């Protein structure tokens, strides 16, 4: 079937591009050549915030139709599926039989191929590492027609290159990964209120031992003594109960919100209410996995609340240090800039190493912050933050990035040189051209 030239945007919606869309439906089909001798790139749910899933003027292999589940061993907890299957598809299949994803990002609307290519992490990183750690094997289809079966034993260098390889090593056709056994679909959770960054680090240190899942929401507008105040969420899978699967999204944002809907004042009010609604220091509850892991999945197209100009997400990891100077400085700069960030998510990452050579997570603390797109002002703030992160020896998450400079990328991800030999000559992305050549 002929590809067609169509507009494509990623989740942040501020980079309108055009690409030739070439759907792929079968893992057993050969690859078609990209249009006009340009390059190609797999494109799944388009949930990357920046441009690592975009290939401007090139071809995008749309994988969401290649979503068959190929095998599931409900005794051993191992599933094999085509790369376009989403985590939503997988959960529907495994939860009723007492299994859960080994690692899940904050949305289930990502493909398994995307989870491998970005080597996603989740609230259990301190105990389980990245998604890539649970991948047993996968098939990589190269543009020369070769099919490489990759595992820690077979083609191990391609296994390492492709996990976290942001889709550049070829098309991942299917993936086999291990699951986590659960006795119930429910999560026993606690919400702990913290007054500032010091308290956050203290609670994180206490919690990582006893809680499988931990994450914190931080009010990025609070300053002074309240700098870094927020809510710490921690939970464990309940030992027994019903194995009920989640339902479809209940709400939706049908159109772009006016640009003014989210301003410093409205976000300040939201943040104050969000922080203030919790009275006790610790609140306990038992909730379904859906609101615990995927609070925003309940609202279709939530990215439209940032209006027509879209938004950025800024995520980095810096090595842990007792005084947490980099985090403090970054929160301070954001608060001073007045560029409201609705959601600030903080998590301590553990020291379990990923098999992926380009994988983002490192031991330390990671912050993910949303910013409405206010043009040059926003970009200048990011440049400022970049310098703080680089000085602290940090790294940036390609799945979120839309704007870092080539210098910044090369400094923070020195592995890129060694990685280059794994890139398929017919594959490329807007992200890769931007951070390695400075072009798009």
């Amino acid at each position: 079937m002929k590809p067609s030239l169509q507009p494509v945007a990623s989740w942040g919606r501020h980079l309108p591009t055009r690409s030739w869309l070439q759907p792929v439906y079968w893992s057993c089909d050969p690859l078609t050549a990209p249009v006009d001798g340009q390059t190609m790139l797999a494109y799944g749910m388009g949930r990357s915030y920046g441009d690592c899933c975009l290939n401007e003027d090139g071809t995008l292999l749309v994988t969401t139709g290649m979503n068959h589940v190929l095998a599931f061993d409900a005794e051993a907890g191992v599933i094999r599926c085509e790369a376009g299957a989403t985590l939503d598809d997988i959960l529907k299949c495994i939860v009723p039989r007492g299994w859960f994803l080994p690692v899940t990002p904050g949305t289930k609307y990502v493909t398994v191929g995307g989870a491998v290519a970005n080597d996603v992490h989740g609230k259990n990183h301190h105990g389980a590492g990245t998604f890539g750690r649970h991948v047993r094997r996968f098939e990589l289809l190269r543009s020369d027609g070769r099919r490489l079966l990759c595992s820690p034993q077979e083609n191990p260098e391609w296994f390492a290159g492709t996990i976290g390889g942001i889709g550049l090593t070829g098309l991942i056709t299917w993936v086999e990964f291990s699951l986590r056994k659960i006795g119930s679909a429910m999560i026993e959770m606690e919400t702990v209120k913290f007054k500032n960054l010091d308290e956050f680090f203290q609670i994180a240190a206490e919690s990582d031992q006893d809680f499988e899942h931990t994450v914190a929401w931080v009010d990025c507008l609070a300053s002074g003594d309240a700098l870094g105040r927020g809510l710490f969420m921690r939970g464990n899978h309940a030992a027994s109960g019903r194995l009920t699967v989640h339902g479809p999204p209940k709400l939706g944002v049908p159109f772009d919100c006016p640009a003014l809907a989210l301003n410093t004042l409205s976000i300040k009010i939201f943040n104050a209410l969000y922080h203030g609604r919790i009275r006790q220091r610790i609140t306990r509850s038992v909730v379904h996995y859906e609101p615990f892991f995927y609070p925003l999945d309940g609202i279709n197209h939530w990215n439209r609340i940032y209006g027509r100009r879209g938004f950025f997400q800024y995520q980095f990891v810096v090595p842990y240090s007792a005084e947490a100077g980099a985090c403090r400085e970054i929160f301070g700069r954001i608060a001073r800039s007045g560029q409201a960030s609705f959601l600030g998510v903080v998590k301590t990452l553990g020291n379990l190493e990923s098999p992926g050579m380009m994988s983002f997570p490192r031991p330390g603390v990671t912050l993910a912050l949303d910013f409405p797109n206010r043009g040059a002002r926003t970009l200048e703030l990011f440049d400022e933050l970049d310098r703080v992160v680089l000085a602290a020896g940090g790294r940036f998450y390609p799945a979120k990035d839309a704007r870092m400079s080539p210098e910044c990328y090369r400094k923070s991800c020195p592995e890129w040189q060694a990685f280059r030999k794994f890139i398929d000559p017919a594959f490329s992305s807007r992200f890769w051209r931007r951070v390695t050549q400075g072009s798009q």
Partner: protein
Amino acid sequence: MKKVLIIGGTSAIAQAVAAQLAQSGAALYLLGRSGPKLEVVAADLKTRFGAQVGIGAIPFDDFAAHGPAIEQAVAALGGLDMAILCHGSLGDQKDCERDFKLAEAEFRTNCLGAMSFLSLLANRFEPQRAGQIIAISSVAGDRGRQSNYIYGAAKAGLSAYLQGLRNRLYPQGVKVLTVKPGFVDTPMTAHLKKGLLMASPQRVARDILRAAERDGCVLYTPWFWRWIMLIIRLIPEKIFRRLKL
């Protein structure tokens, strides 16, 4: 347990119908052109729904292979309650205009091939005095348009054939349902823009199985196509010939 044969079992609509039937506990047999693809679909149905699924791969354009393939399916299922015809192709209209060989091939697939299967199925169901035949035709068969009249003419032939078949088999209690989908988001329409009219295969599958349950004759899916096509059919030919549809 309902025993269902799906012809063209790797098509997107067929896969969606198969998934819904599998969830309701039906035993399935998928007939298709590609063995590897049939294996993928069968694995998916077995894994996700624990379905009982058999597969058979044959060249559809070899009509002599149709009879033995149906026999094999019936043997594997241990009988037959329902047959669903989902196979088809949407060739490029312009290419078909230039080269009649391509137009002929379209007809062999969408019209003659379907009729070959249908005649075999009708003769099997008739003496059984029970059973249901569902065939996917298209709204494109309701009126010839310059943009895809080769496909449309083949589907028009199929629709008329199904009308006659429904009429013939009615006294025997064998049901025949003609399905006329509009735009469905499948590999066949991957080159088209995803407008408001584009329906998901899951939606279409749900409509088909509901219509089958209440013994419908002609199903437009989604429903609004019945009214769109009514208007399109009502336009006088003198005016229609000027339109760019």
